[in-house]
């Protein structure tokens, strides 16, 4: 009897958490356990995992509003990232050093995110049902367009432009002296020589996550979820579906912009040109690993998914390389991230039937 209860409650737990997450979780755990035996420092590993979690979590959070409004996964994340890059470069151009530059970057990125998000939303409203395919190409083409713009825009701060010609932005720009590690170092805790917890960055993510969570509990947020759940129902309840969808796209784009700024301050560099090109895929697969589906996602999905995904991305290279002395890690990473996207898209078909 007791055993039965135990197994049934265990089954319930497995079901609610999801088998794929348990398998990935166990795999990650096994990586952490093996790490010390193959000579990988556990402190460094944990530190890296936390760091990468903080760097990517906001971009994964950027998936949430669009999923809620039924616009699907935000494959057009590069558009948000471009808004962030514009904010970042303009902030550097204004040339106010220190943490202020980070706030300025956010400030400058916001209008771009709103305008680009609005246009992107209008486009998605015209292609209902095929959002994700269109979004992918919105992302790709905007990256290509900006490749031209980075060369032409009249930036002049010497830290950013090509040294030999004096015009056109470099592919990689250091944030050193501006907002490098402003969040990472805020209240950071040094546990051991190798293990540092980037408290500020985690807190910043927590703040944004709270805002999104709260938003989803408001009247408009409720409408957004309903639009994603059944847009005809929402329309029959007097909701302007297109408006809500546009709002969600703007929110996602803005979060993408903030996401890349958080990433830059931790990474230390602004990556232009083809940098944003492949940023969408890791974020998409992270939220899917976290248990979100194409039209349902929660903050918890974001946290779990980012942690598992980034954990694996961090751990596999170091552990595998030390173990087999061959560089397999990249292959495994690609298999995991693309396999997860495939898995989630097939699951969508199952749900709607």
């Amino acid at each position, binding site marked *: 009897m007791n055993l039965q209860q135990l197994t049934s409650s265990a089954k319930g737990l497995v079901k609610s958490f999801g088998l794929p997450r348990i398998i990935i979780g166990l795999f990650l755990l096994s990586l952490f356990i093996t790490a010390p035996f193959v000579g990988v420092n556990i402190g460094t590993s944990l530190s890296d995992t936390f760091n990468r979690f903080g760097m990517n979590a906001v971009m994964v959070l950027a998936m949430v509003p669009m999923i809620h409004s039924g616009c699907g996964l935000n494959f057009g994340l590069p558009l948000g990232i471009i808004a962030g890059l514009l904010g970042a470069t303009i902030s550097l151009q204004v040339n106010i050093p220190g943490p202020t530059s980070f706030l300025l970057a956010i400030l400058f990125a916001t209008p771009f995110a709103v305008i680009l998000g609005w246009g992107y939303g209008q486009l998605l409203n015209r292609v209902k049902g095929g959002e994700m395919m269109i979004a992918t190409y919105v992302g790709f083409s905007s990256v290509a367009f900006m490749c031209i713009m980075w060369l032409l825009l009249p930036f002049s701060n010497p830290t950013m432009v090509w040294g030999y010609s004096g015009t056109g932005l470099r592919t990689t720009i250091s944030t050193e002296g501006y907002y490098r590690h402003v969040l990472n170092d805020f209240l950071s805790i040094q546990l051991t020589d190798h293990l540092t917890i980037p408290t500020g960055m985690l807190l910043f993510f927590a703040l944004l996550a709270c805002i999104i969570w709260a938003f989803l*509990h*408001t*009247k*408009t947020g*409720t*409408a957004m*979820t*309903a639009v994603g*759940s*059944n847009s*005809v*129902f929402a*329309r*029959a*309840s*007097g*909701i*302007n579906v297109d408006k809500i969808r546009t709002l969600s796209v703007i929110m996602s784009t803005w979060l993408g912009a903030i996401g890349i700024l958080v990433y830059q301050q931790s990474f230390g560099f602004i990556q232009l040109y083809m940098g944003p090109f492949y940023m969408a895929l890791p974020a998409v697969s992270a939220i899917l690993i976290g248990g979100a589906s194409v039209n*349902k996602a929660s903050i918890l999905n974001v946290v779990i998914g980012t942690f598992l995904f980034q954990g694996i991305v961090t751990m596999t290279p170091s552990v595998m390389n030390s173990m087999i002395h061959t560089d397999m890690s990249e292959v495994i990473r690609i298999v995991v991230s693309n396999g997860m996207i495939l898995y989630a898209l097939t699951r969508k078909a199952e749900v709607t039937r």
Partner: protein
Amino acid sequence: MTVVWADKSHNQVLKDIKEMHENEVPLLEMKHISKDFFGNKVLTDINFSLNKGEILGLVGENGAGKSTLMKILFGMDEIHQTGGYGGDIIINGEKVQFSSPIDALAKGIGMVHQEFSLLPDFTATENILLNREPLKYTVFSELFGERLNILDREKMDQIAERAIGRLKVPLDKDMMVSQMPVGHKQFTEIARELSKEATDVVEGIKLLVLDEPTAVLSEQEADSLLKAMRLLSESGISIIFISHRLQEIIDVCNTIMVMRDGQIIKTVPSQGVVIADIARWMVGRDVGSSKREARGFDYENTPVLLSLQNLWVDMPGEVVRDVSLDVHKGEILGIGGMAGQGKLGIPNGAMGLFPAGGKVIFEGKEIALNNPRHFLDAGMAFVSEDRRGVGLLLDESLEWNISFTAMQIQEKYLKRYLGGLLKWRDQAAIEEETESYVKQLEIRCTSTKQKAKELSGGNQQKVCLAKAFAVGPKLLFVSEPTRGIDIGAKSLVLKALRKYNEENGTTIVMISSELEELRAICDRVAIISDGKVFGILPATTDSAEFGLLMIGQKSQVLEGGSV
């Protein structure tokens, strides 16, 4: 409810028919056929027989069970997947049990559906013989097997000509289907069934089921089809003819069988029957069985609450052409009519879910069309006939389903912070309201957190009603509130509507295909035909008169009456 088997003249008639064919075994007999879909009974104890060369007219309202009966005869998958059927089907004295339509075809039963199943870019001949083409061997087929046989065009033409010849219609066998008028498409379909000649594995066509073949035809085309049917009948092919055009049924059939609520109400020879009789059998219950408390509604002294003027709605399959209607404050107005005539388009268009035009005047103010928000803001609500598509958030909880519209439109169940800038969902208020509706409407659920998709149809309908009640509307449109739900839930839903009307004085406009239901709870019933109001009668009017209106052809009514 007593079935009218006791009718003496009727028994006499049956005897006559039997005597006529005393020495013959009937071609088809169906004995004690019954069928239920998950406990919802749709056919009970169906008994009839069909002789060689007989034309049987099958009539009944939508949902009377005609198509289910035909599906059983054909052994459609749908029947097996929902638990099979009860009773026996006997063909030529031999009990059969078809496991698929292919078996039925092999026994010589052919069916022509309402929707054409033809390949538009193929000729009549090619369509008639599709996948049954006579083949010729070639050198290649010796080498590579039968798949490289070529079509025997000459033989195909012969067979097609023979089949078309039996119909005696001017159908060009070489014409592309896409270029044919509808009538010829119909003939092509029938010719295909006729071309199924006896082989060693397959029996030739003996019984043809025609499901509303004349619905899409012009009068002339229909005439030639009826002629063709008589010819076929003379050549010994039995026909089951389903149609809503009652005059045709009387003209062409030997026997008329009327179905209602999954039962056979009447089986009579067609001689001497008038349309009015059939109409009454189709829609009416036995006298006295409908207990209606007629409510004297004072139309003179109650103001008009809603006035529809020249409303048109472009709703696919339910086009409204020109509807003008006045709804008085406090009444229950029923809107009935056959499927596809436009009755469902009226609320959908008024609400703005489909493109619409004309005027909708509510409480003296014109409501802008094509935007549900204006409709809802004015104080009206709509319970859609499409529960799963429009009515519910299937993946969300009952709480959300019931509170959502009221929250969005009227800002109920919200807590305000920061001077109204932040409108926070008030979970406690939502729960409380949902609980009260669950109790009031007896919604069967495990909790108010249960997802809407997990409920049964009847309970889902109650959730839809609760959603509309939560808005506290002045006028409530309810579309097909009892479609697809069982009898128990049906009466509960109807009672809830009536009660809501009486207690709150809410005006209700109820659209339903079931006339009896409308007569039971409405004050007046408007019948829609061809996208227009065909007549408005007090609900106490005899059901036969409604039946006549529903057929929608007054001239035919008169002719039928004069026979």
